[in-house]
Every structure is written in C-alpha cells, then in structure tokens.
C-alpha cells in the first residue's frame, strides 16, 4: 500500500524554482516526471538512501526534450507511517 505523499511549503518552492529554471517547452514533461518519481517513492520509501546528515533521500532522473535531468529530494516518514513529507527538492550535479 502506498503512503500519502505531500510536499512542504519549502519543497513546493524548490519544485517551482526548478521548473521555472527549465525552458518552457520542457516544463510539462518535468512536472509529469517528478510526479511519477514521487509516486514511486510513495510506493516504497524504505528503498531510499540515507545521506545528507543521515536523512532519507531519493534520487531520480528524467528526460525532457532529449535532455536528461538528475534531481533528488529529502523526505520524512510520519510516525504513524501514513505520510511521506518531501522536505526539499534539489538538482544533483553530474
């Protein structure tokens, strides 16, 4: 069973800034790709790595307009194990 996935106001701002940094033609694909990636995370958050001071984090990549992007996020799992709250979304240097 999937967790409910939600974004904090900080992660939402990160997401908006990342989308705004893309050429207009690539934004829609990027939004779809991030949504799909976060839904995969919600299906199995225990598979995440632990980095950034031991916080669970999840890396994903997607292709838009022939260009591959590498992004990641950090998140928290609620104590009742119902929600995954994304705390920060960021670009990963390759």
């Amino acid at each position, binding site marked *: 069973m999937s967790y*409910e*996935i*939600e*974004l*904090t*106001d*900080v*992660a*939402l701002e*990160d*997401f*908006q*800034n*990342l*989308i705004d*940094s893309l050429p*207009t033609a690539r*934004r*829609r694909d990027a*939004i*779809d790709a*991030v*949504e799909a990636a*976060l*839904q995969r995370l*919600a299906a199995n958050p225990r598979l995440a790595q632990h980095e*950034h*001071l*031991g*916080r669970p984090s999840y890396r994903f990549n997607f292709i838009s307009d022939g260009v591959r992007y590498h992004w*990641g996020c*950090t998140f*928290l799992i609620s104590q009742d194990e119902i929600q995954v*709250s*994304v*705390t*920060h979304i*960021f*670009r*990963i*240097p390759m």
Partner: protein
Amino acid sequence: MTTLSRNAQVLRYFLEAAPGVGRTKLAKYAYLADLEARKYLGRPVSEFRYVFDRHGPFDAKAFFAAKQELHHAGLATESEVTIGSYVEHRMHPTNRAFEYTFSLAEARVLEYVASTYLSLNARELCEDVVYMTEPMVQAKPGKQIPMRIANRPTGDRLGFDLERMLAGEVSAEARRVRPLSAVTNELRDRAH
C-alpha cells in the same frame, strides 16, 4: 550568562554527548563536525586549524586553550586513567547548564556526528573514518590539513541546501504541507 569560544562550545557539546571521552577522540569528533559543516554549509563549526599530528587531526594550542576555558568556566573536569603504560586524559562535563550559540544547521551537524560516530572505538574512528576523509588522505604528517577541499562547491542555487532541508523539516512538523496531486495540478496550470 557564560560566554565561550566556538572551540570550547564544540568540545563541551561532545563532552555532553560522550562523558568521559579522551582528548584524542574528542579532537576527532570536532574534526568530523567541521568536515560535515564545510561539506554542507561551506564553513566549519569551530575555529580549530588542524595539523596532521601524531594521533591524527589536532590543533594543540587551540584545543588546550578551549579545554582551559571550559575548566575556568566550571563546565568540564579532567581525570587521568592509566591503561598499561599509557595515561589517558578523560574529560567530563559538569552539571552546570550552558546555552550554546550554534545555528540550527550547526546543531544538526553536531547531532549527526554524535549519533553516527560516538559508538565507534578509537581504532574504528581513526582507521575507518578519520583517516579515510579527503583532507586527511591529502595531508602530510606534521603539516596543516587542507580542510578547504571539503567545502561544498558553491554556485548552484538549485542544488542541495542543508538549511532549506531543515526548514522543510520544520514545515513538515508544523504541517505546512500540500498533497502532491494539488501541487502538480497547480504547476501544470502555470506551465501553460
């Protein structure tokens, strides 16, 4: 209110986390905290200037000055324990309360170092952790350790930012959150 240097505050923090710790391990915890802080914040927590000493990274002059500061402020004591031919100097925090001046990010770095490395014995801490860190790999015995190479690369305002992650954690705790589907629908509307 007692005021302490950054160096003394870092030592006192780790003494509270590991009462009775020896000087050598204490210096290594400070080194690891500075390394993590440089990695995520681009600056160290303490003002130690580490040299590749006989027992690893150490700033003898600043360390002993910070230790004296703690003793004078009544915030730490020291005992000697003989182990074979070796005398270990163990440091203990006193019960006197102290208010640290660390930022939230610095406090989380210190917590991380304490929770990750305090359970390791001296050999594991040295051989498996400290001596494997990049500045120590590049350091020459007796010389200053090139700590700056641990500083995070700057320039990507959209890259990982520890302070933003911590702000996000505060938001999650305060329930300043929105469901993913609501966010993506809104962004799709904006993207048109």
